[in-house]
């Protein structure tokens, strides 16, 4: 069973504010899922290369040719707090960790 402090830690890493009830439920559900997944840790995988991607491509690069990007006003159109120069956000200062 996942400990409550682990759930707290992971929620903080994920920038997800969870209520106490959500955290309690999450601890139970994640433990059940991880318990099921646990079986693969018993497999003999010595010397097996990990697969991060199935496509046989390495470093696909496009030609280094300039092309138009989105106009600033269009890029900012969906922002909750657009400013003249970019995306407005609250001060990060108070939340330095």
């Amino acid at each position: 069973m996942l400990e409550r402090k682990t759930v707290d830690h992971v929620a903080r890493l994920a920038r997800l504010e969870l209520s106490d009830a959500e955290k309690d439920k999450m601890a139970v559900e994640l433990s059940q899922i991880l318990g099921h997944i646990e079986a693969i840790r018993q497999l003999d995988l010595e010397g097996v290369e990990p697969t991060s991607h199935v496509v046989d491509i390495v470093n696909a690069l496009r030609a280094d040719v300039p092309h138009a990007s989105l106009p600033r006003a269009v890029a900012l159109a969906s922002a909750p707090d657009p400013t003249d120069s970019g995306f407005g956000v609250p001060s990060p200062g108070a939340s330095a960790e």
Partner: protein
Amino acid sequence: MSAVLLDLTAAAAAAAVKAGELDPAELHELYRGRAAADQLNAFSWVAPEAGADDFKRDTPLAGVPLGVKDLFCTEGVPTQSGSKILEGYRPPYTATVVEKLFDAGATLLGKTNQDEFAMGSSNENCAFGPVFNPWDPTRVPGGSSGGSAAAVAGGLVPWALGTDTGGSIRQPAAFCGIVGLKPTYGSCSRYGMIAFASSLDQAGPLTRDVTDSALLFSHMVGQDANDSTSLAFPEEIRLPTAHDLKGIRIGVPEELLGAEGGIDPGVRASFEATLELARKLGATVTPCQLPHAPHALSAYYIIAPAEASANLARFDGVRYGLRVDGDGDLTSMYSRTRAAGFGPEVKRRIMLGTYALSSGYYDAYYGTAQRVRTKIADDFKTAFADVDFIVTPTAPSTAFELGAKSADPLAMYLNDFCTVPMSLAGIPAISIPSGLSEGLPVGFQLAGPAFSENRLLNAAFALESAIGFDGSPARGGVAK
């Protein structure tokens, strides 16, 4: 006339337009009316009335209307990936595959509902509410492309686009009695698809028959400078013509039909009957081995949430969608926005993925899952040395009742037991309806090696003709 029009497949409708026998505006208006009056909650947005000049008649797709899963970006048209966190979002650009289909003459009829960020197998995890199965509205349409599948099966659109990460095209196609193709990873551009798990996500068609599937897919493939994981498809996609399976070797993997898969008896019976039809068409059917396939689900439920936890980091209340103020600082704004914007399943997977990637657990979970992925891909390569296709039931059951599995995430995940192995291996697989079990459609899945789509579509076409499934829920889907 409208009943006759509704019976036309998309390919037949396109041919009728090109022959001058059908006005695409009439077809569009017919479907638009049906989509707007939708009782299945299949659509999140329906296009306004189109002008006569909006139809590209002299094109391969001849103006035939298309449903597009919500997660494909469509310029100026609401795109939320089924999530509250993208409330009000209208993208400034259109996804490459959608653009390609517009260029080929498709007309956008609407955006279809889905599980939030494509995470789900029932379409119940949706900010716009659940979608209902046209065969029985007390049941789910499958997910995550449930809106697309329900809309096609319910006659609300001739065909639709979906995406498949672990079964999200194939399983809803099976539950709704239609055809769903998950292509080879990399064959269609992912540019403009709101990402779930980048190494697995793939766009594909949901259609009434295999010919429509081939036609839509043929206009989706291609390398894209905006997706560095896309590939040039090595051959042209052709419309299927096969009428038999002579010389075709079909493998049945015992591992996926065993106890852990929990295949329902009715699904098993339809599967066995389809194998018998395949033999009659000239195929040889033999057992084959995929020793690591039973572990695919575990590997998938580490890899997909891990990738999702990274992909969904972008939803932070800064550039688009919802923002909920915190305590005046940045981090609490992020955390509250994400708390308010994401639904329970998305939160669960973000937590699972973040945990699997966190310091101290990375190699034990993510590293192990990636090694299992290698073994699964190797299993398929070994099996395809002896067989042309591997077949399974698409899902262990037919469509289940709304709410039946929503309290038990593990039971829900088991829906993907037969579809996830192919996703991890990046190979193509198609689900076709094989008949009914207690009045509900059953899906039959065929998988082939990477880039075998032409052969796969041909085999599916031959089987489809032999099965003779009637895909109309209104007529009860009785096979001829």
